[in-house]
């Protein structure tokens, strides 16, 4: 665990709450799938909460992120409301995308979330382009591009890192290395060191424990400040783990990883537990207080999901709305 980075107990508790919020959201989403109440599939972020929260807590609302098919965590961490997220998962009118995007396409521009993306690696250009716009306009915002270890196999990453480095763009590439590229161990699909991919372009690259939200937040805070000053781009590899399979339907997965491995991460490297233990040891919060936080957020998620279950579907006349934007 990183050293105490400041004396702001509130920010530690916020990070704790945000991680719990993501976990609660995912628990409810998984249950929706198990109860056959959700159309389609979804990809759980559980286990990786420290990555999204550690980074997004270093950002302002004007800073941008791009997200992935495993995007609920980024969305919550960047400030989204659970009700509108559940509505989107269920294809309801009040969803962030009026039910047109679903789990893999939630966009929340008001909080700077340029959207989840169902093409692995598909948002790397978007994130880098957002940073190009910031540089051209003299805007001070920074863009964080979240992607997984699997996406490092996409050529687009190398094209955009090259341009970001050539033009010193304010973008941070955040590689969530959860050890698995869909149903295949990352060792089997990635040659060499992931950090060396960024270093080849002269991009400063860091590896950080993806379960240690304070360490992530400290690094991200530093890199975001430097990117704002024109010192970007940067690359971070965050070593993390996904508790569920590739998606909620990927239940029998012992052919690619053992139950013992999963139990070890859940028991010994859980990001919420790690921060909770530290908060207690530092006397920032008691076990009871943390329990209350978890219970309150679980109740909030429950209310949100019930709301979404009862919410209306879009009217059929919306099916051909938003194909094109009307130009005035």
């Amino acid at each position, binding site marked *: 665990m990183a050293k105490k980075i400041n004396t702001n107990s509130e920010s530690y508790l916020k990070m704790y709450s945000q991680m719990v919020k993501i976990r609660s959201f995912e628990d409810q989403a998984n249950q929706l799938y198990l109860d056959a109440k959700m159309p389609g599939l979804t990809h759980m972020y559980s286990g990786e909460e420290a990555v999204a929260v550690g980074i997004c807590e270093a950002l302002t609302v004007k800073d941008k992120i791009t997200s992935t098919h495993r995007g609920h965590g980024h969305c919550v961490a960047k400030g989204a409301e659970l009700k509108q997220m559940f509505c989107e998962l269920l294809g309801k009118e009040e969803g962030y995308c009026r*039910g047109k995007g679903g789990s893999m396409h939630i*966009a929340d521009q008001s909080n700077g979330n340029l959207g989840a993306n169902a093409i692995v690696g598909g948002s790397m*250009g978007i994130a*880098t382009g957002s940073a190009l716009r910031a540089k051209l306009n003299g805007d001070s915002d920074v863009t964080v591009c979240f992607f997984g270890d699997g996406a490092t196999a996409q050529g687009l990453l190398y094209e955009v890192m090259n341009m970001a480095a050539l033009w010193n763009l304010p973008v941070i590439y955040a590689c969530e290395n959860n050890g698995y590229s869909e149903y295949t161990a990352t060792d089997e699909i990635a040659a060499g060191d992931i950090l060396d991919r960024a270093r080849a372009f002269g991009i400063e690259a860091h590896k950080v424990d993806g379960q240690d939200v304070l360490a992530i937040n400290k690094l991200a805070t530093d890199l975001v400040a430097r990117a704002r000053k024109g010192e970007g781009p940067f690359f971070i590899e965050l070593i993390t783990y996904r508790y569920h399979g590739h998606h909620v339907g990927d239940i029998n997965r012992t052919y690619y990883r053992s139950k013992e491995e999963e139990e070890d991460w859940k028991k010994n490297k859980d990001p919420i537990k790690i921060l909770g233990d530290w908060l207690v040891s530092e006397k920032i919060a008691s076990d009871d207080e943390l329990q209350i936080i978890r219970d309150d957020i679980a109740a909030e998620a429950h209310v949100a999901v019930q709301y979404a279950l009862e919410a209306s579907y879009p009217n059929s006349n919306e099916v051909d709305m938003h194909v094109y934007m009307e130009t005035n």
Partner: protein
Amino acid sequence: MRSITLSQAVNEAIAEEMRLDSSVFLIGEDVAEAGTPFKITTGLVEEFGTERVIDTPISEPGFMGLAVGAAMTGSRPIVDIMFGDFLFLIMDQLCNQAAKAHYMSGGKLNVPLVVRTNLGATRRSAAQHSQSLHALVSHIPGLKVAMPSSAYEAKGLLKTAIRDDNPVVIFEDKLMYQDKADVPEDEYLIPFGEAAVLQEGNQVTLIGTSSMRQVCEEAALILSDEKISVEIIDPRTLVPLDEKTILNSAKKTGRVIVVDEGHQNFGVTAEIASRISEKAFYYLDAPVIRMGAMDVPVPFSPVLEDLTVPTAEKVASNARKIVAGELVHEL
């Protein structure tokens, strides 16, 4: 009125819009000092600087992706794709990202960008620098597609494209860059979805996109000697398509030939012909004839390449047949 080349018309459209709107920038390979291999953007970097006329590495998916992200956050990029054939390289960013962002986000995001590229064979450039791939992008909801047929259309359509709040792909015929046309000095825009009726007639309608408009005009000259009355329509944009003008003409003449330089199979000619057949069938005196490029990769040898594209003589021959009530295709 002054006459300028299609290349100058494109250059003027970009410069005018960049002067009007500081969020417009140009990005692509060799667009700055080189002015592109076709010398279309020459002079822009001197006026607008390298911040707004951006030379990129040879990374089409990469800079297309950058344009999507910049557009999503407030810029209006013009992306230069040096050859239409390279559209295949940017398909994910164009069709999965740019085209769908507005819809998938329920209207929250939008991607106001222009992809400027080209089409057209017979430049002796073989199969990877000669394709006309506009049908491919016309198939994707969320994209608009413009097909200028002269310098006049090139300027007016490009200015409209830059101001549009959606992703637009505009195809210029690379063989027409030095062709001149009358272009007003004063500002003008050509709205999308409005076809041009270039010549009125009552026996046969020739619909020609891009440079196939000229092929139709040449065919009409041949046919005028034979006293065959020809109507010529240039759709100008494929998406949106001015179906009304096309159907009205089909109803009037009862005979239509659709001429387009894309491959004939599953192409623009097929789409337009089927709309006419569906919606104006009872007015027709002959089957709607499709004339696209041959369904072969574009060959290099001039002797072979010239066989692959519609020509005025072939268009006139087919028009002559359908006006005479003869079959173009054996039963």
